[in-house]
């Protein structure tokens, strides 16, 4: 029996263009750009790429949300924080190295252009919002966009330059280090506050709440839970991009499933990698997570 050796379409060896250590401004964070025309051509905001940390290790792939694409040059950018062995290995990739990447995977954010948009980003949940913002702005529908960023401390607020490139300044909330945050972000932010990101709901304008703004959120699960609760109480549509540990990333193993509400109030499970990572917040059973 002869079997043709076909070329895989979605698993790619992508050349690293650069892998920049963002220290000292944001220690532990790296911005990785890879030459991946297929991904750049097909990716949507909220989707992720599944990166093999090293062909020399046994580690599972690491899912990282896409921060930006350039479909002309075929370049894909992600921003990640080194938190364990997998991301440490990825951070060692140098320009010219090849990374084994599957993507783009998952379902991204819906691009809703007839309502104001409010984007909430926490920590490493901030980068994919830069991609979303670009799509909203590029839609040419004049969507009013507000960006609200939060983190435990100022150094975990990232991507400000990327937002300012598009001409938007975010409101920033830090849990501690207000004076430092004001010093760091004074001219790049619309406002800087001490407190949880959800305090921003008190600052939303009537036009945003009454005209039914769409809330998009990406960040750690406790933050998403709080943002979803506040949004839904105000009657706003809310889409959350969930992070979870993934194994296959392709929808096969069911390892990343999260509880989702049925119409009857009961729950079932849906895959973060396939049905998600973006979910309508009203469907997610945050109390079971």
């Amino acid at each position, binding site marked *: 029996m002869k079997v043709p*050796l076909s070329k*895989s379409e979605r698993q790619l060896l992508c050349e690293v263009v650069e892998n920049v250590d963002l220290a000292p401004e944001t220690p532990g964070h790296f911005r990785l750009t890879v030459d991946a025309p297929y991904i750049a051509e097909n990716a949507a905001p909220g989707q992720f790429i599944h990166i093999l940390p090293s062909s020399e290790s046994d580690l599972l792939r690491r899912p990282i949300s896409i921060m930006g694409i350039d479909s002309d040059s075929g370049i894909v950018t992600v921003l990640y924080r080194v938190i364990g062995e997998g991301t440490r290995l990825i951070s060692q990739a140098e320009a010219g190295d090849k990374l084994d990447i599957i993507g783009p995977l998952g379902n991204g954010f819906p691009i809703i252009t007839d309502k104001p948009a409010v984007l909430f980003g926490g920590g490493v949940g901030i980068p994919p919002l830069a991609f979303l913002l670009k799509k909203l702005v590029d839609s040419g529908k004049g969507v009013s966009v507000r960006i609200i960023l939060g983190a435990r401390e100022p150094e975990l607020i990232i991507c400000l330059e990327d937002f300012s490139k598009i001409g938007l300044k975010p409101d920033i909330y830090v849990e501690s280090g207000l004076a430092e945050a004001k010093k760091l972000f004074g001219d790049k932010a619309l406002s800087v506050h001490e407190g949880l990101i959800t305090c921003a709901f008190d600052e939303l304008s009537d036009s945003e709440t009454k005209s039914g703004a769409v809330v998009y959120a990406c960040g750690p699960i406790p933050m998403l839970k709080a943002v979803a609760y506040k949004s839904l109480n105000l009657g706003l549509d809310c889409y959350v991009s969930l992070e979870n540990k993934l194994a296959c990333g392709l929808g096969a193993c069911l390892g990343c499933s999260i509880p989702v509400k049925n119409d009857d109030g009961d729950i079932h*499970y849906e895959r973060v990698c396939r049905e998600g990572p973006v979910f309508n917040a009203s469907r997610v059973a945050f109390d079971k*997570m």
Partner: protein
Amino acid sequence: MWQSRDNIYIIVSYRITMDADLSKLESNLGPLALKTPLIAASGTFGYGPEFENVTDLHFFGAITLKAVSLEPRPGNPYPRIVETPSGMLNCIGLENPGVDIFLSEKLPEACKYGIPLIANLVGDRIEDYRKLAEILDRESCLAALEINASCPNVDHGFLTFGANSAILGELVKSVREVTSIPLIAKLSPNVTDIVPLAKAARNAGADILNLSNTFLGMSICIDSRKSRLSRDYAGLSGRAIRPIALRIAHQVASSLEIPIIGTGGIYETTDALEFFIAGASAVSLGTVNFVHPNRAKDICLGILEYLDRKNTTLDRLIGSYEGPHACETF
């Protein structure tokens, strides 16, 4: 032409210009004839379409589909997986849409690839397995039925069926009575001695044994002092279990005559070859599919290269274990 230490990548020109002659990989697993001796392990490969455009499916001799039960099962709560040294723990909990949707949606979709399919049967009672087998016996695109008597992640799992020879024998016999499709018994490694269970399954009519399933393990978060998963214990898979799985396959292969599928931590060509030498006629790829979804191709080509280099055949390799290492005498 190869690049990197473990045959991961073949350079593009080779991909385009060469075809792989897989005829030397044909393997007879009792009544089941496979075009390659690699089988996708249940629960790691979904129903097939998940791996479309990522995996060259034809390098698998068969695909074992995600477990199917009579009624839908929601699976276990979140979280379900955690990575561990050289492996991972999972407690998926046999989530599946039930046999009705399996038949109306999942199976037809999987059938279109033209690769032999194996259904993995689970149930709470012997009657459940029997009824499932009766229903699935009518499906022409199923090449075999696999009795999953070994899932560690449900309350009625291996403790009910996988750890007691008499009950396992009764289960296999009951299923055997209602189907003529080749029957695989997938056994649990979480027992003191697997050989009596293997004998019970064979004597009750199993054609093939799959040795084995995940090993019970545990992972604790030292901050919360809770399990990192939604159950206390979960199934360990990956490279970490390979030497133990290999020992189990060898123990059974050297104790009784029955075709064996070796399963557990097979990532490389050399891993598969070890299982063949130990006595397995085919091997399953499981957790490796998550990391290297196209590894079946690399392993097939690696086996061909080995057979060629050693001037031998797969048939001659199977069970060719030579015994303990001994110093050369002069």
